[in-house]
């Protein structure tokens, strides 16, 4: 029997218990081994970029915050940073510190959440229950500091909307101490627990070369030995004044990604302590104009899942002309296909989960417009059409010889 007939096609998604968001993975199986994966985005498109163009900058901060339920601080910070750059606003130092503090607390809750999800994907629900219980500490702290567990509504163009009072400092430190203890326990667990190591080691391999080639970002890239972190390479907010190390790992597998995230948690605790200690006094906001002068800016931000890039183009009104968001998951989806090559079906959920995907953040749509006079063109016809099109605009391309082309 030829191999082709033995292939079983399994639809993982768009509706599947392993996926918390709709996404389609068509998996071709030979026995338990994966021979090909076809990935399809587009089940969760919300049109946020377009929505931003119809709203004012102030409204956009809240809309952009809702790109992601987990890294909401990331997206709103990346957006306001771009707008501040266009408007030429100088961010008060205290505001930068508060932004950074909330960003790092967000990283804590995101990484703990990831650890739990990873546990669930490999059938280790105890880890899920433990990490999510501990995560409540940081969620409650975020609620205390900003008023919300998620979608903090903290950022505004030119600063932050809430100050941190001296009375809140002890509770921050208390939570950080408690979580540091717990994280040490999880690190020990990851290093010693046999079934965990068996399920995580050696799967979802992504070599350093592939990570660079496929443009992986964040912990996914750092676990493949790519020493890249926007917080250090292109410091924003208060990161330039903090001391921290970029955690990398050479294992290049899911276990490495776990180690990197756990290591990052330990760095984050030390950063939060520095932030609280060094926090300067002063105003938390500067007056921002409602109409942003014409201009454009790109803002980079190291979200928990990797580098988040926002591009904003202003046209002098109170609404942006274009907002473009590249969430970290979009950068990492390419590497997932590579990681799944020759893997087992049983490893698919954890390999996909290991990039900490956020599908709705990354979702985009291509609309193919078919006009009334649509028709099919052959290659020759298409070449002629292209030549004519350029000639009408004063460019003659018919003289240009293409390699291996004798007719043109």
């Amino acid at each position, binding site marked *: 029997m030829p191999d082709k007939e033995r292939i*079983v*096609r*399994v*639809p*993982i998604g768009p509706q*599947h*218990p*392993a996926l918390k968001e709709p996404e389609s993975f068509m998996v071709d*199986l030979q026995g*338990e081994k994966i021979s090909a994966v076809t990935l399809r985005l587009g089940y969760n498109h919300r049109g946020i970029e377009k929505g931003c163009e119809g709203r004012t900058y102030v409204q956009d901060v809240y809309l952009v915050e809702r790109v992601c339920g987990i890294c909401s601080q990331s997206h709103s910070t990346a957006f306001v940073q771009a707008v501040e750059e266009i408007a030429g606003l100088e961010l008060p130092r205290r505001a930068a510190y508060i932004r950074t503090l909330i960003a790092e607390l967000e990283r804590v809750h995101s990484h703990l959440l990831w650890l739990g999800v990873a*546990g*669930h*994907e*490999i*059938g*280790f*629900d*105890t*880890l899920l*229950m*433990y990490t999510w*219980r501990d995560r409540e500490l940081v969620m409650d702290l975020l609620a205390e500091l900003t008023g919300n567990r998620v979608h903090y509504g903290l950022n505004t163009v030119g600063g932050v909307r809430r100050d941190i009072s001296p009375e809140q400092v002890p509770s921050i430190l208390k939570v950080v101490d408690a979580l540091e203890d717990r994280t040490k326990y999880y690190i020990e667990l990851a290093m010693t*627990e046999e*079934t*965990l190591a*068996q*399920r995580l080691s050696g799967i979802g391999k992504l070599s350093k070369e592939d990570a660079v080639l496929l443009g992986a970002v964040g912990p996914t890239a750092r676990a493949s030995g790519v020493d890249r972190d926007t917080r250090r390479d292109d410091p924003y907010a208060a990161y330039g004044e903090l001391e921290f190390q970029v955690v990398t790992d050479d294992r290049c597998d899911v276990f490495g990604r776990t180690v990197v995230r756990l290591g990052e948690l330990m760095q984050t605790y030390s950063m939060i302590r520095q932030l609280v200690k060094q926090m300067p006094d002063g105003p938390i906001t500067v007056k921002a104009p409602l109409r942003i002068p014409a201009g454009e800016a790109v803002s980079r931000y190291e979200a928990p899942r990797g580098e988040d890039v926002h591009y904003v183009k202003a046209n002098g009104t109170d609404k942006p002309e274009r907002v473009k968001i590249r969430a970290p998951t979009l950068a990492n989806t390419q590497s997932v296909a590579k990681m799944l090559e020759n893997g*087992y*079906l*049983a*490893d*698919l*959920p954890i390999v996909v989960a290991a990039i900490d995907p956020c599908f709705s953040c990354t979702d985009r749509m291509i609309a193919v417009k078919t006009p009334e006079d649509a028709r099919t063109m052959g290659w020759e016809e298409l070449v002629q059409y292209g030549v004519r099109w350029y000639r009408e605009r004063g460019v003659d391309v018919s003289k240009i010889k293409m390699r291996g082309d004798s007719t043109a």
Partner: protein
Amino acid sequence: MTVGTAVVNILVFPGFLFLVALGLAGEFVDRKLYARFQNRQGPPWFQPAADILKLFGKENVIPEEADRTTFNLAPVFALAAVVAASLYIPLWSATSLFPFDGDLIVVLYLLLIPTLSFFLGGWYSRSVFATLGAVRAITQVFAYEIPLFVALLAPSLLANSWSISKIAAYYAAHPWLWLVNLIGFGVALVSLLGKLERVPFDTPEAETEIVAGSFTEYSGRRLAFFRLAINCEAIVGASLIAAVFLPFGLGLAPWLGFLVYLGKVLLILGILALLRTLFARLRIDQMINFCWKVVAPIAFLQVLINLVVRELI
């Protein structure tokens, strides 16, 4: 024994209804312990019964492409086989309801039928997830069934009998000899985890990969039958292990013997719940490797020990 009492014995006590009640209680104990180990609240005591009752009231969906006969019969077969097996296991007295020489083999055979019905039900569901689950279920049968057989063979070697009642009676007469079989006890517990398809051996119904495995297409009454079968299998499996490996408190008064029996089953259920708290799900190839390279040799070691001990006594 008249036909009347036999029917009551089979259907009510200690047969079907009693076993179902015990099975639901067992599921509660398992879920509650699992929850408490994980720092959760856990369900109220009537939750398993409520789940089953609700399932009975739900719509029955049969996939169009499924083989209707097999699809319908598989759950019933699973439950019937488990209930039949329970009749040959001594619960709190020294003998079972219908003891005969060789009932150990029959019980092991009957306890294999649920797994086969999971396979058939899944295979004939014609859904890709169910098929994968069915194939995984049948693949891992061989990995845990043989260590289980060998582990149960070892105590019977000492007792020189294939009858569960006689094995129990032998160890009751030689009080401290059961300590020899402790390794086999461990092997049997691990195999029971595989039989019940629990973490770390729950690949046939790994939620995050193949939805619910063999049970993906099952709903309503038929799913309830499958769940009851698994619950009862847990009790019957635990009782079998208790009868063979923990043979004490057999000569006591009935009510006291019953309490001792419940204690033993609770202990085994507790160990199973603890094990499934501690581990991550193994991949099917890792599971097979583990069972053949670690569990099976340990089971054979137990046989070897028992052969030596038999010569010494």
